[in-house]
């Protein structure tokens, strides 16, 4: 296949390396490019007019702009199976071997069958989907599937992203967004003043708008200032980097394309996401060129005139060989000159002004056709422009002049300041009648807009504003009324046929906005959502001001009073990968391991996440599935005994003269009365009376206590305690230290627990006299301090042994050896859960942030005679109203049935008509001891329902089982075993 670049000029192109010609694929066709080409410039050079399809109507679209304001040319890029959708072809550099495909079309953008939608244009007005597909509501899901197929952007990639991403955080004195004359000057002035400067350029070269022209004076200036900046070590120049977000306290986010600049580099990410905290922020983001309104102004070949010049000088690409250039200021003559110099046959310059002046005369004298007081009323040609319909238009009237054949209509609707960054920071805007644009109002946040972003579009002003801003001088406010007599791009009459598009990406036309106004929409925010104006990836950079002006006209308001829509970050699309950075996979999820973790792994543990911890859920030696294993493990604990690593439980050391008083304020029951070496189960409430956490408190010194709390609650409990100490009772002298990580903890449970303890510590007196329930002794093992606390979670005779964490692995190993000799096993959290359900102990499933102590049968732990956090709330009247959900046990009728996940409780059989839920299952397990399925549940007035029959149902799973309400303590109600 012969590949060529018909639209590449014979020489020039500042950004490309003509010495090298490479290949990439576009929709499976080979396209040539030079290093430095954007996807758009390479496709334009190849003479391909259609790059995308519009969002709603699937109209063929070509490249329209040069930078981030591009509304049409969205493509999916990739290397092999790794795809990135919705890349703007204008700002994405081509790389060797890249495959690029058009979007939103089937089978491809050249021949899109959905393009038939365009023929039904009159049937698809603003709000069409809202109006048509809302009724009947039951059908919405069916419609949605169809609509999604037709309307959409690129496909999500199916394969895992192979690209690498990174984050960087930096502080600087000055951040400058934009590297045109204003931004460069600001960087130089600030840099020479000794400030740390970050200069972000969204392009691969410095110069901004200067790159779009050839001019000896500005080119020399650019070369000189670039040299000076590169010599300043305190100025960091970041190319291919866009400031995308402005946040509180001068935090900025920047998106940097690393690989797109340098090719894939070993050890480097493809994109970097920067968080920059900067003392000052200088916005030098330039201006945004605006489209003109005329019939079928979206056809491939219609393009922004300034952008078209940019393609010549940046990339050596001539977007048309016989262009018609139209607009209402002198720039169109400079652009015509660019095309003439590049070898084009300029068909006509169509100037809206009746007396444009010397530039027009000069060009006309060279034989170029210049039409004064004329406009292009319509673009002809469907897949590519083939003629411009030119009309004479003046105050005296309008008449059709001629159909001028052409391959490109280049339009110049003037420039408006790029306001996104200023407005994101809630900067105010003023309407500038001279520019027909909003301009930024300087604020006091250390932000300032300069150059084009301020509305100052000439070279010298941009430089002087840049230098002043760089030196942190105050700039005079922009002059608001100095009319330049440039007609606004929206003030053009509709003279011919064809839809006049305002927002190209979303197919919003002038008549959609007028329709919205007729239907009563007044606010630009509502019109935006109703018509989708400005909701595309270009965020309506170009369309916004025109849409606003049309709405103002249609509603009889002033533009200044109509306001602008809210700008939100990011200003340009940022990939999710860049936001996630390196925090993906294992790096994205920190894992805390107990001291015995590697032994658990060696013993065949299957792990489960508990907060950040990973804990053995069960040991595979005890069963092939979790269900089998936990039943075996739980049965063994009750029969002989078992050991479990409980290091993850939170542990807090509380000491000081007021420690006892303080604990009395944290727990509902009294802790100050604990004797030395004795412990007590305690309940903490939130101040609103709901159960917050529970655990055991031991007095380990005269003024010292050891608190335990739940694994998941540990950090919240510590915060809660610090709040109580620092905010509620700052007068108490208490010192609190979280010590969870300092200890390794094992629970030894079951009838043989005492034997195991005696084998481990032969010198210790383990009798009930020395070590009764809720007693504690300190001893040593491996010459390390060891604590043995007799507490039980399983309902069996049980001890918790704590040792310094660095000896945890050794303790675990020793216990494993000794316990297996006794026929005891290791067990995991799943068996622990089954054992505690049999005993009716609560976890966060029951203490779910709604229950109070009475609800779960722990009202007896509340000492109402004292003040502790949450106690006063318990006497608020609504807590004593009937109908509260209360904790009960359930015995499932069918002995081996599992309980429906998310099971709701109903009073009568599920077969009958719909009935209200009276509660829900909080936990369930198969009880090896009872040989049947049991559950804990919260049921309305459940305490009075013991003995009644209920049904556990899951309407989603279409499951239902019968159960009997019982007391939540299923075994050993008297507590004989734990006292054994």
């Amino acid at each position, binding site marked *: 296949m012969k590949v060529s670049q018909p639209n590449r000029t014979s020489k020039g192109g500042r950004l490309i390396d003509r010495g090298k010609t490479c290949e990439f694929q576009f929709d499976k066709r080979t396209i040539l490019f030079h290093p430095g080409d954007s996807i758009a410039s390479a496709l334009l050079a190849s003479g391909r007019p259609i790059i995308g399809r519009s969002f709603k109507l699937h109209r063929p679209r070509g490249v329209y702009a040069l930078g981030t304001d591009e509304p049409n040319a969205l493509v999916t890029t990739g290397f092999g199976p790794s795809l990135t959708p919705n890349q703007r072809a204008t700002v994405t550099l081509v790389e060797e071997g890249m495959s690029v495909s058009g979007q939103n079309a089937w089978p491809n953008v050249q021949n899109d069958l959905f393009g038939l939608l365009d023929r039904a244009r009159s049937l698809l007005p603003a709000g069409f989907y809202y109006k048509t597909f809302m009724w009947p509501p039951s059908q919405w899901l069916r419609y949605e599937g169809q609509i999604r197929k037709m309307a959409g952007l690129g496909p999500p990639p199916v394969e895992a992203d192979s690209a690498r991403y990174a984050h960087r955080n930096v502080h600087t004195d000055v951040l400058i967004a934009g590297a045109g004359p204003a931004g460069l000057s600001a960087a130089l002035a600030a840099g020479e003043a000794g400030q740390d400067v970050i200069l972000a350029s969204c392009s691969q070269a410095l110069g901004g708008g200067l790159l779009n022209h050839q001019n000896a004076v500005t080119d020399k200036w650019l070369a000189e200032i670039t040299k000076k900046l590169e010599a300043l070590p305190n100025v960091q120049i970041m190319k291919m980097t866009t400031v995308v977000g402005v*946040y*509180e*306290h*001068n*935090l900025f986010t920047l998106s940097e394309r690393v690989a797109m600049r340098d090719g894939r580099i070993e050890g480097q990410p493809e994109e970097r996401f920067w*968080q920059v*905290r900067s003392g000052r922020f200088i916005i030098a983001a330039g201006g945004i060129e605006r489209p003109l309104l005329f019939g079928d102004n979206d056809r491939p070949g219609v393009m922004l005139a300034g952008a078209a010049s940019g393609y010549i000088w940046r990339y050596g690409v001539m977007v048309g060989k016989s262009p018609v250039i139209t607009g209402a200021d002198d720039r169109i003559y400079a652009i015509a000159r660019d095309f003439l110099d590049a070898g084009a046959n300029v068909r006509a310059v169509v100037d809206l002004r009746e007396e444009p002046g010397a530039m027009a005369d000069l060009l006309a004298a060279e034989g170029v056709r210049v039409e004064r007081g004329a406009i292009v009323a319509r673009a002809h040609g469907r897949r590519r422009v083939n003629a411009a319909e030119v009309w004479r238009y003046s105050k005296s009237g309008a008449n059709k002049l001629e159909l001028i054949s052409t391959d490109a209509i280049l339009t110049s609707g003037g420039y408006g300041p790029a306001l996104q960054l200023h407005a994101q920071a809630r900067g105010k805007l003023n309407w500038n009648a001279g520019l027909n644009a909003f301009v930024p109002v300087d604020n006091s946040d250390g932000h300032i807009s300069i150059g084009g972003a301020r509305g100052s579009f000439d070279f010298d002003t941009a430089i002087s504003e840049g230098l002043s801003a760089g030196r942190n001088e105050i700039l005079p406010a922009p002059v608001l009324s100095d009319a330049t007599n440039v007609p606004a791009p929206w003030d053009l009459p509709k003279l011919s046929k064809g839809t006049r598009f305002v927002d190209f990406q979303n197919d919003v036309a002038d008549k959609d906005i007028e329709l919205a106004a007729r239907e009563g929409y007044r606010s630009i925010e509502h019109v935006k959502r109703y018509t989708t104006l400005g909701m595309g990836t270009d965020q309506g950079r170009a369309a916004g001001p025109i849409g606003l002006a049309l709405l103002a006209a249609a509603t009889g308001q002033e533009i200044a009073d109509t306001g602008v829509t809210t700008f939100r970050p990011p200003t340009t699309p940022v990939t999710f990968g860049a936001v996630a950075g390196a925090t993906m996979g294992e790096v994205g999820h920190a894992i805390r391991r107990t001291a015995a973790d590697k032994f658990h792994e060696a013993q065949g543990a299957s792990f489960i996440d508990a907060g950040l911890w990973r804990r053995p859920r069960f040991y595979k030696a005890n069963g092939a599935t979790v269900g089998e294993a936990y039943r075996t493990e739980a049965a063994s604990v009750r029969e002989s005994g078992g050991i479990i690593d409980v290091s993850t439980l939170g542990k807090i050391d509380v000491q000081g003269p007021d420690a006892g008083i303080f604990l009395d304020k944290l727990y509902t029951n009294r802790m100050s009365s604990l004797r030395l070496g004795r412990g007590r189960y305690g309940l903490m409430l939130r*101040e*609103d009376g709901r159960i917050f956490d529970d655990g055991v408190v031991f007095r380990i010194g005269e003024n010292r206590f050891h608190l335990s709390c739940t694994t998941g609650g540990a*950090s919240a409990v510590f*915060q809660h305690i*610090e*709040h109580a100490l*620092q*905010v*509620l009772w*700052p*007068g108490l002298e208490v010192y609190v230290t979280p010590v969870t990580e300092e200890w390794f903890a094992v629970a030894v449970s079951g009838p043989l627990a005492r034997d195991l303890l005696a084998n481990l510590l032969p010198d210790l007196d383990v009798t009930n006299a020395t070590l009764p329930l809720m007693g504690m002794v300190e001893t040593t093992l491996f010459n390390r301090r060891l604590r043995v606390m007799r507490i039980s979670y399983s309902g069996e005779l049980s001890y918790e042994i704590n040792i310094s964490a660095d000896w945890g692995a050794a303790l675990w190993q020793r216990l494993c050896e000794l316990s297996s000799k006794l026929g005891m096993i290791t067990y995991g959290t799943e068996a622990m859960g089954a054992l505690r359900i049999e005993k009716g102990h609560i976890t966060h499933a029951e203490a779910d942030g709604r229950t109070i102590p009475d609800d779960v049968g722990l009202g007896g732990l509340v000492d109402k005679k004292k*003040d502790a956090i949450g*106690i*006063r*709330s318990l*006497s*608020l*009247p609504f807590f004593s109203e009937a109908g509260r959900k209360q904790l009960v046990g359930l015995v499932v009728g069918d002995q081996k049935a599992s309980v429906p996940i998310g099971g709701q409780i109903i009073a009568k059989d599920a077969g009958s008509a719909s009935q209200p839920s009276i509660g829900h299952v909080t936990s369930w397990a198969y009880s090896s001891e009872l040989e049947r399925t049991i559950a804990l549940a919260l049921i309305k007035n459940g305490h009075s329902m013991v003995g009644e029959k209920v049904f556990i149902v899951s309407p989603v799973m279409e499951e239902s089982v019968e159960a009997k309400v019982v007391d939540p303590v299923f075994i050993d109600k008297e507590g004989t075993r734990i006292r054994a």
Partner: protein
Amino acid sequence: MLLIPCPHCGPRPETEFVYGGDARVKRPDPSNSSDEQWAAYIYERENPKGQHQELWLHSAGCHLWLIIERDTVTHAIGSVRAAREDQQ
């Protein structure tokens, strides 16, 4: 993201802190407050526009509970002091 000047640690990003609510709300004496007063302490909070006094815990830093003056419109931060010192 706010930059909070912790009196102990210096300026630190908001992500190191945990928000703790309105610092002007004081715990009433539970034995000497009506149900209405107590319920107001638990459930009623103002949402001021402008100057506000807020509790923040420097949880990834010194673990001080701070009282921070913040403007809810501009995010400007005024005085920052340890809650403990404020009340003693």
